[in-house]
């Protein structure tokens, strides 16, 4: 109209193409980094690996020859201890980070965490109950770890279900009541854990404490295959949610006017987040701050556009968890630091830094 504008369609198109290419390149770099970390992770740890002996063990196995004790042990540590937990770390990291990304997009708040709606609180309360019961009734100990995982999973979904029921209003689900209900459910879960801890004996108490710190120590191939098989459709769904999340970023009314079935997608996002975090928490305990911090890093490195942000979160989440797991095994051999502590130790200060920056600048990444 009045002011001349100097962007031609061709220019804009080129800019958008260039941006897409840049993000794709960054994503490739991230994948490469993941592969490198995977190799480092397979090498690092208290147990000294020797590539030569591993190859010997492999060729013996392929030729169906018996292994020496040394070869067997090396092969065992490599294939049954390290490899499964490394893959588990990647799946869990991707799930948690993508959940965080979806959660922050949905509530339009970069400081949101999947734990906000009671998922980890519910999981921890249920797991603590199961741990105390197993301790009290030793006959339950046979399938103990499965009972704990199942309880944690059910507990997490139950907590979310309660939150959703409470937050439901005739006009749909209000995000503010969702968060308040989450706070209340988390407090309730905390009370429950407190009561159980008070009544439980020393053994159960220690187990509850260790469970809430999170660990990848007990990972087996069957668990990895289980999580992997469930992760693929979940990750697919998260990718499908990229454009809806972009619309949510403009506000719920705006999203509705732009053709998004807001209440349907809100439910879908919440349940998907609940399901994936419950899955990760049930098998590995509470692993904090991945869901909060990774989307921030991804937004700084990539873009706020969920088209790029979502896959970037998946890749960076996997990388962060891989790095944290490697650090937890390699930093203080022969000790292993619970992975929840490593991720929180990195995540909490970073979170404080973000808060401080937000206060100073008014705008945050």
């Amino acid at each position: 109209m009045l002011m001349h504008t100097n962007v031609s369609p061709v220019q804009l198109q080129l800019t958008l193409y260039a941006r897409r290419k840049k993000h794709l390149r960054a994503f490739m770099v991230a994948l490469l980094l993941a592969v490198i970390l995977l190799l480092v992770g397979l090498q690092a740890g208290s147990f000294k690996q020797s590539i030569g002996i591993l190859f010997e063990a492999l060729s013996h196995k392929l030729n169906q020859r018996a292994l020496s004790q040394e070869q067997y042990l090396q092969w065992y540590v490599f294939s049954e201890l390290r490899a499964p937990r490394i893959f588990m770390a990647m799946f869990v990291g991707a799930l948690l980070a993508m959940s965080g990304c979806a959660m922050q997009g949905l509530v339009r708040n970069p400081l949101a965490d999947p734990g906000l709606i009671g998922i980890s609180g519910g999981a921890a309360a249920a797991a603590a109950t199961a741990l105390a019961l197993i301790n009290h009734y030793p006959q339950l100990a046979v399938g103990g770890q499965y009972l704990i995982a199942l309880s944690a999973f059910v507990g997490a979904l139950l907590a979310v279900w309660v939150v959703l029921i409470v937050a439901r209003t005739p006009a749909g689900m209000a995000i503010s009541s969702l968060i308040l209900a989450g706070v209340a459910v988390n407090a309730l879960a905390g009370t429950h854990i407190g009561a159980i801890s008070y009544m439980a004996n020393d053994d159960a108490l220690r187990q509850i404490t260790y469970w809430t710190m999170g660990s990848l120590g007990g990972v087996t191939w069957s668990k990895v295959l289980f999580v992997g098989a469930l992760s693929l459709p979940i990750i697919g769904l998260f990718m499908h949610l990229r454009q809806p999340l972009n619309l949510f970023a403009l506000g719920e009314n705006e999203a509705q006017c732009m053709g998004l079935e807001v209440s349907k997608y809100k439910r879908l996002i919440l349940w998907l987040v609940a399901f994936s975090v419950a899955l990760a928490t049930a098998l590995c305990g509470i692993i904090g701050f991945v869901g909060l911090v990774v989307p921030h890093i991804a937004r700084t490195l990539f873009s706020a556009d969920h088209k790029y942000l979502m896959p970037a979160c998946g890749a960076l989440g996997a990388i962060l968890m891989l790095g944290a797991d490697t650090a937890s095994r390699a930093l203080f051999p022969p000790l292993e630091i619970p992975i929840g502590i490593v991720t929180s130790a990195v995540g909490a200060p970073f979170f404080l830094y973000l808060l401080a920056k937000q206060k100073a600048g008014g705008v945050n990444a």
Partner: protein
Amino acid sequence: MLNLQNISLSHGAFTLLDGLNLSLSSGDFMTVIGENGCGKSTLLRCIAGLHASYSGNVTFGQRSVDAWPAKLLAKARAFVNQHNQVQFAFLTEEVLQLGRINQHENLAQSSALICQVAEQLSIGHLFGRDVRTLSGGERQRVFIAKALVQLLPNANEAKTERDFEGKLLLLDEPTSALDFRFQKAMMDVIKGFCQQGLGVMCVSHDINLVLPYATHVILLANGRCLAQGSAGSVITAQNLHQCFGVMPKLIPQANSVPYITH
């Protein structure tokens, strides 16, 4: 194109809208005027399909607005809020791209459409900027542009003189943050789209700015329609006194739309 029959909405004991009837055709520019809290924005939200609990019928096109599939409706009706907040670091062109979210077209096609609208609203120079860092007026222009981009027909369809036939743009205070120059320019651009068939319903307090553009004027008071019709017939000292409770002075103008002052 748009038909409202007996629209009422109450929130608890408080009546927001009370038996409204109105209709709007392609190319119409309807202005809704009334004091604060008289139900102007509520009316727009009902038409946009954001309020589920009203009684009465809102018919858009051939069917009730609630019966439209969401994606189809989004291609035919756009809504610009008075305030637009984006929480994340989206860039101007990314927000405009979202306007084409329901269309199947390639990047070259959508870029062409976006640049066309951006040029008309002179926001091309804002490309590459984080929308959160834009001024209120700049952001308002970006969101109006996004709404227009949303209504543009698919690039694969042949372009006609009546691109916006049967489409509806709902504007809530579209010029509230704009400066002296852009207020008028914005109205000119929108009027231009009306000539291509766009129906516009615009809530505004800047009566003197919008009246010359309006083909229809509705005067709202306490959720009721006080008067509707052409600007000349609705804008009388009597009506305005009834609506706002103060007696204005009307200065007659050449185009039969009076200038209102205290």
